[in-house]
């Protein structure tokens, strides 16, 4: 079978190439002029493959801006989210995997959380750059102005499956909202259902909801809602680097400080049609 020969040859070349450029120290990154970023695939507006096949989105633009500060060329690898962040960190940041190869230099869009920092000693969590919030986008035609959480006792609310919003609505108030929850595979599917009036509201990550509604955004009331008992209504996003790679961490932190201070990060969020919320970790210094 000729195909087998070419496949094996291809894989060998890819692995060899990969091994020489993944998870390098800052000096190697500078020498090779390449920094490898991992970002989640199929995750608009943060990171996704654009029509031309190239990586695009907020996180990708942040990666490009960081690479420019470091004076190196960014390369992006769009990866799939496994069951938990710990799996992703192992495969894409500190260890690699026998199918997907060695890890990247930097992973984008990693939560910046003190509990994680304590727990994961193989990873440095650095450079928080924004805050994600659990918000409700409400169709005020159906729900009226300033709806409160109890409206979901009877009104359909869309969520992405296995998210904080999903778990909260299924469990809160002894399951009072459970039969009103409509599950979608992604926020863009949920926001489309909101536009189609199949649901009265969508609950989930603000940035994804704002981008999902796009031009229709102003037709909906989008904001924080009092959600008694929710485990986390917001969290910070930052970068993850292998903990041994201290020089790279330091360089990225310096670069991120500058990009936040000069408004570049905010501009990137706004360019993608979303509002910017500074990370709590920086506000609370």
């Amino acid at each position, binding site marked *: 079978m000729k195909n087998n020969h070419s496949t094996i040859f291809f894989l060998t070349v890819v692995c060899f190439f990969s091994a020489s450029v993944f998870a390098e120290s800052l000096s190697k990154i500078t020498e090779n002029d390449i920094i490898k970023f991992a970002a989640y695939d199929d995750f608009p507006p943060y990171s996704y493959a654009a029509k031309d096949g190239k990586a695009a989105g907020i996180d990708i633009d942040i990666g490009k801006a960081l690479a420019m500060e470091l004076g190196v060329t960014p390369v992006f690898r769009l990866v799939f989210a496994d069951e938990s962040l710990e799996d992703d960190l192992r495969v894409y940041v500190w260890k690699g995997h026998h199918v997907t*190869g060695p890890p990247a230099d930097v992973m984008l869009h990693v939560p910046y959380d003190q509990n994680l920092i304590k727990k994961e000693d193989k990873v440095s969590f650095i450079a928080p750059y924004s805050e994600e919030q659990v918000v409700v986008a409400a169709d005020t035609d159906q729900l009226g102005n300033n709806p409160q959480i109890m409206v979901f006792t009877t009104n359909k609310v869309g969520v992405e499956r296995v998210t*904080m919003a999903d778990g909260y609505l299924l469990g809160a108030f002894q399951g009072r909202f459970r039969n009103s929850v409509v599950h979608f595979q992604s926020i863009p599917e949920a926001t489309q259902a909101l536009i189609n009036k199949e649901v009265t509201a969508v609950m989930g990550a603000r940035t994804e909801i704002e981008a999902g509604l796009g031009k229709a955004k102003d037709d909906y009331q989008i904001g924080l809602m009092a959600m008694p008992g929710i485990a986390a209504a917001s969290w910070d996003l930052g970068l993850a680097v292998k903990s041994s790679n201290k020089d790279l961490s330091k360089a990225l932190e310096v670069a991120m400080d500058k990009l936040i201070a000069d408004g570049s990060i905010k501009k990137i969020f706004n360019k993608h049609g979303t509002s910017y919320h500074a990370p709590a970790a920086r506000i609370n210094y």
Partner: protein
Amino acid sequence: MKYVSGACKSGFLKSIAVASIVFAAPMSNVVAGVTDADIANDAKTTGDVVTHGMGLQGQRWSPLNKINSKNIGKLVPAYTFSFGGEKMRGQEAQPLVHDGVIYVTASYNRVFALDAITGKQKWQYDHRLPEGILPCCDVINRGGALYGDLFIFATLDALLVALNTGTGEVVWKQSLGDFKAGHSATAAPIVVEGKVITGVAGGEFGIVGKIRAFDAKTGKLVWERPTIEGHIGTLNGKPNGMTGKLNATWPGDLWKVGGGAPWNNGTYDAETRTILWGTGNPAPWNSHMRPGDNLYAISTLALDPDTGKIKWHFQYTPNEAWDYDGTNHTIPFNKGGKKYAAHADRNGFFYVLDRTNGKLVNAFPFVDGHSWASSIDLKTGRPIEAGKRPGDPTKSADGKKGTVVTVSPSFLGGTNFFGMAYSQNTGLFYVPTNEMGMDIWNEPITYKKGAAYMGAGFSIKPLNDDYIGAMRAFDPMTGKKVWEVKNGAPLWAGAMATAGNLVFYGTPEGFFKAVDAKSGKELWQYQTGSGIVGSPITWEQDGVQYITVPSGWGAAVPLWGGEVAKQIEGIAQGASLVTFKLLK
């Protein structure tokens, strides 16, 4: 290495002869190579093994007795074949053998065809795995199915692939779902009357399970049966009735993302014309979010092979909360003129069902550690739960780790996918068991795809100091444990019983063992060089009985081991097939 030899075994004359013998079969089912009759009679014919489970009933039983408890001391390796290179991961397959050729899958979705007597390679097929597969539980595969001149197996990127048995070239491919959405496949398909039947994995990603039948010759979909109530099945592209009744046992729209992945293979009972297939966990993981039984997750489904309609079901763990997938085999057997089916569940209980209607006949624990439930109510079939259900994460508002519940079995189960064996001579089931428990607690804030959600933490621990695994023999009708052989590490490989009064099984420590089927006395063992997580087969060729077993440590135990890790430290990786025969 030579990937394909030019030697294409000519089965032409033979196939004509076969075609004339199976005159009773419809013309469309007359094929070269492995016939419907070969498959139907696989458990009785000793010259080949053409099905996963050594017969569609999955009894892992052979009537061969040339190798027996008297001469087992003379069993020696005939050859060791290396799957080779740097691809030494878990080898979970059961090989097949037909017409003097062994067909076996290996890690990374490779397939090897070997001369069964000499171990000389005829061809190798390397499936190209895309980078985007979700690297969950090692790059394993559990085997394939033979039909006509096709070897059919499923891949980690959720394809069903049919290879030409003579050349290893791809004849057809069929998608089982988008691997990027979490679909995956590792089980061996089975072929029932010309249809290849398979499930799909990915319940942890919210995939709704589907059991499907494809035309084995073309790969064209014939029927599809979703495993969760509310979903509509199909037959020949047309709707074919809903699974269950909408919202009967599920709240809201959770049935839409309800899991129930049938990730292991099933069995087929020709006497009742019934496919018996197990289903996995309901989703989401926390049971408090989906009050109700959550049918037909964690169940055996009895399906009509022509249409995929559900004849009956039996659910093992209603409103499942511990990751006790119901995917272990359900194995038909007869006793006293009655038709039964046996199922040793992950939840630690052994069930005997009337396979004509799914009614419970007997249920008993096959592990000591079954603290989640004291017993099974024989009238209702439901467990008597012992108050060990993990808590409701939404009740922990402060975001801290919830209360730890210590419960057994662990989520790896009292036994798992690999399959017990049934001896038609002793009437006993031989079950590879594991005595493990787990701590399970809520983590109100964990992260997935960069976002917070409510998850859980698990930690596995052995229940005894001196052993985890135990090969056990049970009388299915009385529940009596007739014997056991303890093992340090957890057992993770299928058993095989033979008319030679022998039970064979492999251990993670690398030993392939034979024990006396009646007494459990250890008679023979051979160190294969790496841990065994694959299943043995036996056949005879030119009057000589052979046994072969894959060796190669990996799969779920080293990934999930927790404290169990201490028991499996230092097990070498490997990747080989070891074939045995008696010393002359």
